[in-house]
């Protein structure tokens, strides 16, 4: 390694450390605030390490009757899980047909579907709500689970992967008389696991974090999802910051756990779909 490389490595490290401060300090401050009694949350001079360490904010967030945080957790978890499972099933079936089956108009249909990715989602906000209210789905889990299944992104992502699976595996099974469904379920899906995990992560996180759509289609406190509930809580708690920060930390825990276990898939997935998309 030459001298110039060493210098640039050192400059990079200094730059990254300075930037890292801006990203770490807000996180630490939020955690610190959430562990303080409300009376000490606003103190002068400020303390990074709480004078009195307490979990009462977390307990309070769970216990409150007026803001059903546990219910929001359940709603978000239930909706995101069902939505993700259906997305995986339908998109992998579609991707299988578009990559491994031959039928007339296949490629025209596929690229027409992909073309609709350019339709800006904001255009569908008003008409989709009109449709949902006609169906009587306002304030119903159905409105949170089903409309998003129209997305074609997952088909694109999975098809890219399915195309790369060697044809010999499939042909051997076909000669043995296996049906298309058997091949899809027993051969393609097990081989495509990495791409299914990537799609599952993206879908789950997007649904878990979604804000505008659940804000529009839920109307009662017990049907809110976590992000919408938190946003409304901000008004209800009347800016009691320690409790608000405790709720904030809690809401982030599931996605952080997911990230710790699946970081490599997420990074790969972004690079894959970003560059090739």
């Amino acid at each position, binding site marked *: 390694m030459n001298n*110039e490389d060493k210098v640039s*490595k050192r400059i*990079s*490290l200094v*730059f*990254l450390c300075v*930037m*890292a401060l801006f*990203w770490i*300090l*807000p*996180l630490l*401050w939020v955690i610190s605030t959430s562990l303080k009694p409300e009376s000490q949350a*606003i103190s002068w001079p*400020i303390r990074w390490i709480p004078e009195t360490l307490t979990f009462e904010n977390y307990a309070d967030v769970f216990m409150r009757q007026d803001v059903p945080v546990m219910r929001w957790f359940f709603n978000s978890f239930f909706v995101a899980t069902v939505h993700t499972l259906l997305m995986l099933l*339908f998109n992998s*079936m*579609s991707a*299988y*047909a578009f990559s491994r089956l031959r039928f007339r108009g296949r490629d025209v249909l596929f690229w027409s579907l992909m073309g*609709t990715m350019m*339709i*800006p989602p*904001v*255009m*569908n*906000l*008003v*008409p*989709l*709500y*009109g*449709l949902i209210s006609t169906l009587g789905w306002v304030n119903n889990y159905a409105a949170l689970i*089903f*409309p998003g*299944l*129209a*997305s*074609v992104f997952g088909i694109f992502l999975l098809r890219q992967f399915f195309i790369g699976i060697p044809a010999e595996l499939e042909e051997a099974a076909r000669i043995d008389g296996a049906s*298309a469904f058997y091949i899809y379920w027993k051969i393609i899906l097990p081989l495509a696991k990495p791409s299914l995990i990537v799609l599952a992560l993206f879908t789950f*996180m997007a649904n*878990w*974090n*979604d*804000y505008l759509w659940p804000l529009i289609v839920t109307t009662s406190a017990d049907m809110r999802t*976590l992000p919408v509930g*938190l*946003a409304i809580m901000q008004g209800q708690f009347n800016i009691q*910051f320690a409790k608000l*920060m405790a709720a*904030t930390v809690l*809401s*982030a825990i599931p*996605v952080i756990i997911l*990230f710790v276990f699946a970081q490599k898939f*997420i*990074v790969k997935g972004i*690079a894959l779909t*970003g*560059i090739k998309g």
Partner: protein
Amino acid sequence: MAITKTGDQPPVYKRNWKEKLTPLLFIGPHLIFFLIFLAYPTIYGFIISFHNWNFFGDMSFVGLQNYANILWNTDSLFFEYFWSAFRATFIFVILSVPPLILIPLFIAIAINARPPGQNFFRALFYAPSLLSVVTVVLIWIWLLDTNAGLVNYYIGTLGLDAIPWLTRTPWVWISLVVMTIWWTIGTNMILFLAGLGEIPDHLYEAAKIDGANKIQQFFHVTLPGLKGPLAFVVVMTTLASFNVMAQPQLATGGGPGYETRVLILYIYDTAFTGGNPRAGLGAAMSVVLGMILLSISLIQFKLMTREK
């Protein structure tokens, strides 16, 4: 479809019939959702935009009136509100897009130099992207609180006056841009890192042999090598910034006055809040914004196909 006369060759008949139906069974389930929740609403949105409607009663046809009221009928109150929302969105795009590209670009280049702790840095800068916009905004409301916030505390220790981050121009804009940067640089950083990884080492070696220093290498090897990801990131970031809504809604309430009431926030206010939702007007504004976003996507599509 070849139908055999009798039952003497049932396998052929069966296979033909089945082979035609099989693909449909595989694409059918998704296609149903696609048609109901994407294709139909796209057309329905245009129809709604030519009507007055409150989502419940009957629609009444008003022709181009909704478009007139926002685009050229200067006497209309909506004209003023729409253009003020348009201005707010435009300010946000102009202020947020350059840092949302440059900061992750520099971070990616620094991480690509492989300093110690590179994995930690990558995970840290990506981490906020995992959070919901609500979580991010709540964190920053607390940090930027005029009286009790951490930022104003340190500004106070420097002997300066407290800054009204969330209630006064131009501070509101700085706040919205800063929280957006903190939230979203992760994806762009990873795209840049992937792009940097694809630049072959021998190009840098060749540049070195030619006597190029690090800065010359950046402009003559790194930047040209990142052309693909850079074009993609610019377009995606611009689209995302045009779609901003939750940050101003939760942090500034669209204020002060209507200063930060961006387009999607105004569409939301018009169509989904208050006693008399105006679906037609909201749909018309969505169509106008949608056309702007669509042209940006088409430009990207052109760029990407030309590249290949």
